């Protein structure tokens, strides 16, 4: 590695103090401090690299945000709140997050679905509790669920979860590897089916089908698409193991940022990277909006493909294949529209089973699979049918006393929604919020106007305004379709986190294994960079990963 100049403060001519300098040298610069950028930076900083991470917002965290949008006095986890991979994420173990005071709560009642007639279905940590709730509607389905989950849990813990943190394999190699075990073969069979087929094949009751379909597809799977069926066991199993980070999701970002700083890394907030500098085809650093330059032969971007390759670089100087693949990139087919509220009382659902009020997530608005599919079809077509919408809600203050600074409860109701809605969000926003509140009040009769102190809507457009890299409100930086997954995410040339441009790496949700707070892209990018630079890794694969490597890769 080239000799780097020491960081020196730059005195300001008219003031008594020095500032961070206009030009500085680094071993690696990371663009974007979402979960993935932070993870990459933290691993590399501790590996001894001199690391700078640049964040556009005034606070690190990206999707890990706990902020006072119900201003003044109430904090909300406005983006990621359900942490699906806490059981497996290497960063949590490698950085000993417990030492940082991070405590994840895994509520027993994970998800409830409530229906107009007071009926309900539950998805719980314990398979047996879920089966009990299914028995109300179908003994056959209850038994089927129990049987399926025993296998699916193995598919998840032995294959899908560890593979999240191991570089993507080409489909052929993957198929060959999976032949080695029964569960591997079972997994391969699922891949070729659509979520709808999988659910319909195994379950007969329509409510149970709707419930499991929601849980399988809520993060953006097309229910009718084939080639991604392995997500069904993954998301149902993880849907039974969602965690809430006590004190709010931002605590994870805080802990990671402390790891970076403790290891000598520098965090620069409130600065957009506006350009990735290149010389003779290799990356030489980045430029910040306020005119500062960070020199580095390694630049790692956590942003979406368009921003990284087209906005921050000269599109016309890219290799043609790369340029074409970025142009072909599809953003998420649906986004979220969320209504956050402060209420005097916590939501109380009109439901025979009173336990529902304690559910981490509560789905309502849908009485049948048909209605659910109709909502999703509408969303894809840019529409919302105000009479037939639904989604999921969480009462955050029920889990976390730290979010409220004044007496009251905070909750949100989130639904799948199109970015490009007919008529535009500015115009349609208010009526849709009213319709959502009305729907909520129907499911939980105490969520009436008198009970609601403050309400705030975050539309897909708002998501994009907060995070320009979540283009079109893409919470995963790009759709989950077979040709955008695995070693095709974001394209064949970049899915191993390096790119055809020397020194440029990718670490965000648009790369393998994808979006949500998986910690996968960030971890894999750190591994890739460490390997390319010949830096000794201070971390080891988790035991689940070791077992996977032994079974399938050696």
């Amino acid at each position, binding site marked *: 590695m080239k000799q780097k100049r020491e960081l020196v*403060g*730059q005195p*300001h*001519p*008219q*003031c*008594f*103090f*020095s*500032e*961070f*300098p206009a030009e500085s040298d680094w071993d690696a610069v990371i663009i974007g401090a979402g979960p993935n950028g932070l993870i990459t930076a933290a691993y590399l900083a501790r590996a001894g690299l001199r690391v700078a991470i640049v964040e556009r*917002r*005034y*606070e690190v965290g990206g999707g890990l945000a*706990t*902020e*006072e*949008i*119900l*201003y*003044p*006095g109430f*904090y909300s986890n406005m983006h990621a709140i359900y942490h699906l991979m806490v059981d497996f994420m290497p960063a949590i173990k490698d950085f000993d997050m*417990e030492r940082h*005071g*991070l*405590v994840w709560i895994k509520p027993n009642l994970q998800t409830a679905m409530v229906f107009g007639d007071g009926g309900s279905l539950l998805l719980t940590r314990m398979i047996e509790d879920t089966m009990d709730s299914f028995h109300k509607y179908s003994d056959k389905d209850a038994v089927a669920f129990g049987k399926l989950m025993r296998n699916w849990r193995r598919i998840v813990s032995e294959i899908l979860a560890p593979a999240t943190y191991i570089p993507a394999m080409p489909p052929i190699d993957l198929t060959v590897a999976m032949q080695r075990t029964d569960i591997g073969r079972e997994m391969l069979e699922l891949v070729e089916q659509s979520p709808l087929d999988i659910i319909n094949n195994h379950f007969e009751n329509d409510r149970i089908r709707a419930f499991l379909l929601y849980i399988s597809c809520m993060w953006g799977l097309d229910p009718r698409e084939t080639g991604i069926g392995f997500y069904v066991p993954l998301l149902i199993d993880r849907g039974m193991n969602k965690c809430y980070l*006590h*004190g*709010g999701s*931002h*605590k994870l970002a*805080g802990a990671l940022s*402390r790891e970076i*700083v*403790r290891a*000598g890394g*520098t*965090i*620069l*907030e*409130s*600065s957009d990277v506006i350009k990735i500098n290149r010389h003779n085809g290799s990356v030489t650093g980045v430029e910040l*909006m*306020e*005119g*500062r330059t960070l020199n580095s032969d390694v630049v790692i971007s956590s942003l979406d493909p368009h921003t990284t390759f087209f906005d921050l670089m000269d599109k016309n100087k890219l290799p043609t294949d790369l340029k074409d693949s970025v142009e072909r990139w599809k953003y998420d087919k649906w986004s979220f529209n969320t209504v956050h509220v402060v209420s005097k009382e916590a939501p109380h659902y009109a439901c025979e089973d009173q336990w529902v009020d304690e559910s981490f997530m509560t789905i309502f608005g849908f009485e049948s699979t048909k209605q659910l599919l109709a909502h999703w079809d509408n969303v894809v077509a840019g529409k919302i049918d105000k009479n037939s919408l639904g989604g999921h809600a969480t009462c955050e203050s029920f889990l976390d*006393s*730290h*979010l409220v*600074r*004044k007496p009251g409860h905070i909750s949100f109701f989130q639904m799948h929604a199109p970015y490009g809605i007919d008529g535009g969000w500015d115009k349609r926003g208010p009526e849709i919020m009213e319709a959502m509140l009305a729907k909520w009040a129907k499911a939980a009769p105490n969520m009436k106007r008198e009970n609601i102190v403050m309400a*705030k809507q*975050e539309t897909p*457009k*708002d*998501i994009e*305004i*907060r995070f320009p890299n979540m283009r079109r409100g893409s919470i995963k930086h790009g759709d989950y379709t077979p040709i955008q997954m695995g070693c095709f995410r974001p394209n064949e040339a970049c899915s191993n986190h390096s790119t055809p441009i020397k020194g440029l790496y990718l670490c965000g949700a648009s790369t393998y294994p994808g979006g949500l707070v998986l910690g996968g892209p960030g971890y894999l990018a750190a591994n890739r960079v460490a390997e390319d630079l010949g830096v000794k890794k201070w971390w080891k694969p988790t035991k689940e990963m070791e077992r996977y490597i032994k079974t399938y890769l050696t």
Partner: protein
Amino acid sequence: MNKEERYDIVIIGAGHNGTTTAAYLAKCGLSVCLLEERPECGGAQETCEPIAGVRIQPHAIANYGGSAPGWEQLELWKYGFRMDWKAGAIVPFNTDRYMTTTDGLSKVTDKDKMGYAKITGLLTDPPFFKDLMRATFWCPPHPPHVELNENTIPFMQVYKQHQPDMWTRELLEWTMFDLMDEYLDTEPFKVNQAWIALVSGAHGHMEGAAIPALCSVATVMPPAVAMPVAPRGNIHGYYHALLRCAIAHGAVVRTCCPVEEIIIEHDRAVGVRLRDDATWGAKKIWANKAVISAVHIKPTFLEMIGPRHLDSGFLQRIKDLSLKGGSLYMTHYLTRERLRVRPKFQTPGYRYEDYGSFTGPFFPNDSRELYFENVTEVMGHQRNLTIPPERAMYGMVASETYAECHPQSTRPGVYINGPQWMLVPTPEYNVDGMDAMEDKVKWNEYMRKALSQVVENLDSDNIIQILGESPREQEFRNTGMLGGSWYGLRCDRDQWWNERPLPELARYRVPGIDGLYLSHQSSAHPGGLCLMAVGYNLMHILIEDGIAEPGDWWYASPWYIPEEGKISAIPNRPSSVSTR
């Protein structure tokens, strides 16, 4: 998980002052644990984005701390500290400036400027501005054996040395108005300065507060910059650099960890106990060397320690500390178009298209009679304002002024304006009740009317939303701001220097309880503002007590007088203080 932990130092409250203290002590090599109640550190030094793409500063805004030794000692630039130098904000002192009065603009005359330059130490070569600021804010109160007089008070020493023709014993008796009458020219300029002092914690009309009041205004303006300036990432960006300095030196930081009790054994503070719902396994955290309370003085003594360890007379005096003053009603306006200044207030350089030339008014600066009318209304009557909004005094910082290239609104088609802030009665003493100002629709409208005296298009067509915050809400949001008081207790002569907060507590120690120190704006000289001053001053005391042993980077205040029988905080080497 281990249920108990041990550090050298446990600090309660990660606001500006707790964090500065943590950074200093961690840099001394001590193991430090910083405990914060809220989900985010920073206390009143914060930014939030309640509407996508619209960022506001609910509390602190401008960087008053330019003269702090902390910049050098803590090397904040290393931790990403940057300023947001708006090109237009760097106005040399010699350009035209105007004050707004009901009748329109009043030009600041050369006599005003020269007089101001003289009293703030800008006329000598080299200027003594920085010494004056440091003497006023960055020096611990003298030990009790030192008699306080015109020869020992630090700022008096500075004048005597650098501007002897200004030095007179009367400086210690004067109000800021007296001082300004002596050196300045136009009434609106004086009224303006007095009003800024009033909202900065040292009242323009209080006897004996002339120099602290003057400095409270002057410290916001680095000498060559005649306008307040903000750090990049706003005041929270400055905070981040401080926090990261502490972390880089090993401080352990925990959010969502409210402290419920300071554990006292044998008259010594030995640790703290967290509230049950703290997001941390260990509920007791032990301190080998010191517990430092960087939260409001009232809960510190009344709730976290209590009568078991403190004498009831002392507790009564803590209870009696006034919360009066410093309660602000804050508004931000989200608008469709930029605010347009009424023609009579448009300065010659004003261009509607150039938002930077709208700096936000301080209004009305007509006369000191009007100033007193406002003061009486707020401090005297202690009831909801009855003064018509046309005559109510307020200040405003137009957000966009602070945005060289990172505008506070990145939401297409909208502008964020503010904060506009107005001094209002402290809720605790409001005769109409604590919640009297909670009718926010009404008070937002009052604020809007007041601002509309200067701005012509602040009407319902233009306004998308008004974000108002009452003092009660500031208190809820940030428990450090009791009564919403942003400088913590009123800052008159008996709340300044050796009297703050009570004479026996003025040296940051707590008599009768060893190992307990105070480091909050409400509990320590010099009080409010993000100055890195309480932490720096406290360092002297901790060195005296043998707790902190700083390295070569440390220098003591040149006006500091060591306490007899203690270790001197002056290092045994030539001082590296740079005096300009």
